[in-house]
């Protein structure tokens, strides 16, 4: 069961992270909570996948990071979308819609 979840996440993790940042900046825990929330609890992103993905996307320039204070006045690293990130989100959403439409079609015909 576990491997299934990771394979599903592989393709969509970037998209979900970008999507979760649309409404504003978040720290790592916040992002994982937000993803859980917007997917109605379907995806639970483990830190072992989340942090490598965040750092890779930061290196790509899609998100940028800064240190800020958390809701409990704790120093936390926050991420926000960059311009390039918004573009990427658009492109990936388009791609995703196409794929999910195609898959849905496939199931309807069958």
């Amino acid at each position, binding site marked *: 069961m576990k491997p299934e979840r990771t394979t599903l996440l592989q393709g969509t993790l970037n998209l979900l992270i970008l999507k979760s940042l649309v409404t504003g900046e978040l*720290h*790592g*825990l916040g992002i994982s909570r937000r993803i859980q929330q917007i997917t109605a609890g379907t995806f639970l992103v*483990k*830190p*072992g996948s989340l*942090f*490598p*993905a965040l*750092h*890779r996307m*930061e*290196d*790509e*320039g899609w998100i940028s990071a800064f240190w800020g204070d*958390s809701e*409990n006045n*704790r*120093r*936390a*690293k926050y991420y926000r979308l960059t311009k*390039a990130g918004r573009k990427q989100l658009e492109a990936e959403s388009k791609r995703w819609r196409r794929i999910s439409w195609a898959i849905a079609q496939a199931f309807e015909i069958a």
Partner: protein
Amino acid sequence: MSLFMKTRSFLRNLLLSGRVDSDLDQELHSHLEMVIEQNLRAGMSPSEARRSAQIELGGIEQVKEQVRQERVGNWLHSVLADCRFALRQLRKSPAFTAVSLLTLTVGIGANTAIFSFADLLLNHPVSLPDLKRLVYVEEVRPGGEEASLSPANFRDLRAETKSLEGFTSYQEWVASLAGSNGAEECIGVRAGEDFFGTLGTRPILGRVFLPGERSMGKNHVVVLSYAFWQREFAADPGVVDKTLRLDEEKYTIVGVMPANFQFPPGGAQLWTPLAVDDANANERNNASLAAVGRLSATASVEKSRAELNTLWGQLKQRYPEVNRQWQLSVLPLREHLVDQDSRQFAALFLCVAGFVLLIACVNVANLQLSRSASRERELAIRAAVGAGRSRIIRQLFTESLLLAAVGGAGGLLLAFWGLSVMRANMPAQVREICDVSGMRMDVRAFAFTFFAAAVAGLLSGAIPAVRGSRVNLRDSLETGGVRVAGGGQRLRRAFVISEVILAVVLLIGAGLMVKGFYLLATRQTAMAPQTLLTFHINLSPNRYGSPEQQRAFYSELLDRLRRIPAVEAVSAVSGLPYSFYEKDRKVLPEESRGAQFSDLPGLMEESISDDYFRVLRLPLFEGRLFDRRDGAGAPAVGIVSESMAHRLWPGVQQIVGRRIKLTESERPDEWISIVGVVGDIRHEVYDRSFRSILYLPMGQTADASMDFALRTSADPHRLVASMRSAIAELDSTQPITRLQTMEEKINQQASALQFVAILMGILGMVAILLSSAGIYGLIAYSVAERRREIGIRMALGSRSSQVLAMVVRLTGSLVAVGGAIGLVVGFGLAQILSSMLYGVRAWDPAVYALVPLVLAFVTLLATFVPAWKAARVDPNIALRYE
């Protein structure tokens, strides 16, 4: 944009890696704290909240490692980290590092130096631009006899060929140079049309010859070699238009060649135009010209060979009486210049160098293997904190490559040093056959070194890396890295055995070479070479044109030399032993009249004065020596060497009285009666058997150049002054050359072989040293590994001597197996070696007795320290060790 970002991230990750890393650490810790707070709010107890958060995170270090692998530039970063880590690891085990580095440095260094030398022998006999497009053209008989080209044949080929864009001829010429302190001999070259242009070289001063200067009378111009210009004119830049007296005639200097121009090889000092008179130009019989051509842009050697052979076919048809038996040979100039001996020795050197490198690699691999076994625990810990399998393999590879790179750099330095030492000590004889100044670490030698370094690193890295990555985490951590001797042992033992085999083979080779040289140096005791003074005289054809004049000069000179006090006997001969003399003739014994020319046996002709055999101390076996009876008008007589007698008349008792005819002699139709048989003498260092020699009395043959030998009762060097004045009284302009004792002559000729023997000896020593380091490594490691076992044995009552015996037995069995195989393999290779060196037998008892002794001694030395340590193991400490 994206590329820009990536570059920025790459630089940041690389340059600010410390900050990036601590950032990540903080980020993860704050994440952990937040999860804990969240858990507390959900009503967990503090310890439960922390535990659950840690489980969710799955280990900060592992997450960090995962993040690092995702980062841009991670590969370079981790390579650097690997290097840093590898350096730290290597520093931590200095003995291992030192032995590995030494091994690689010596292996790679020796290899590179030898490779450069072999490359020089094989590929750079002479430094000429685009050497591979030059071909050497000569006439060859079906039997293999070679001659140069005759002037008329050369002229016709040159006029017709289209495959050669340049085609030139030359003749070597020994000239007498008039100087302030008497005359001396110098080596000149008569250069044909477009000689310098064909060879692709230009003078550094002045000009080369004009086309008009090739006609008789206008040819008194000369181009100097760089060395000659330096020596005779102190590198005077105004040397052009000055004059020289060569063979009593005035020559005007027109140019100076660059320092690296030396053609034909063998120390040419000056070049003059090859003037052709009409009579000579139509000469088709006498093949007197060496010919070199440069391929035109579209031609290959094969194409040119085909074209020239077609032309040669036409010449054969047109002039059947002279050209019928001859064929044309077209060879790359390099192949013509590099002789069989050079090729064999170069191949030998390459083999030896390969052996040394192999030993070095096996050694390093062995050391790595031993070490990786003792590092299992460390590797297990690294695996436990999240290092992937590929990461660990890469780490181990990095260590080996780092070692190889440093070792390679050290090797390069060693090779530089070795080459400069070799260059400085290169015997003259080697200088003659190849362009030593061209010996340097060329690009290919560099490439070869780095290739060798990389292979050495990978070879030695591969096995530990593969083994090391198969670490079983739990086992390794539980046993704490101390295991019972296991599978790796077998591989390491195989390594030691193969090292011993290689070293023994090399030692046998080195031993045979050294033995061969020793034989050379000591064989000629009967001749007493240290009391023989020798020199060479070449009479100028201008003043001693006829055989009668030459004979008169030589017999007068012999009389004067004989009168010098302390001279016991004196003799003239056309070529003394060890002076590279050749004069091949075909002989027709009376019994085999009517035999084909090509079937006739060959021999060497020597013209001698009466006392020759007394001076050289050769025994007379039958008949008589020459004396006053055997003058110009008397019946032709000859004396044969023992091996010639055996060849011509096998099994015959009475040789004296038999008759032979000689080809190419002054009196070809006359029967020569054999009047005596004398003992054999080795003529040249490199001869593999005695030559068949026919001695003729000087009164009946003539030679413009002769060697002289004076048997003295005093130190030969003290006779030089009186000898010189004896010659000067007779003819003050006559130069003498090659003034040296016979001992010096032999040493000079053997110098190349001595050089080879010393090189082989050094390489043999290197091999045995490296092998002993390997043996030491293995034994020291297995003693450390079995410390506990030894402790138990001692606790149960084993005595020190028994433990000592156990360790020695282990080494002994390995070395015995390796040594035995090595002796067999070495014997096989020695067969090849013995065919290269006269007097060296493959089965040389001294060498085969000595090699195992050396091996045993070195083994004992390598075993002693670890064995002694093992015997002193204190069971209390050893058992508490864990």
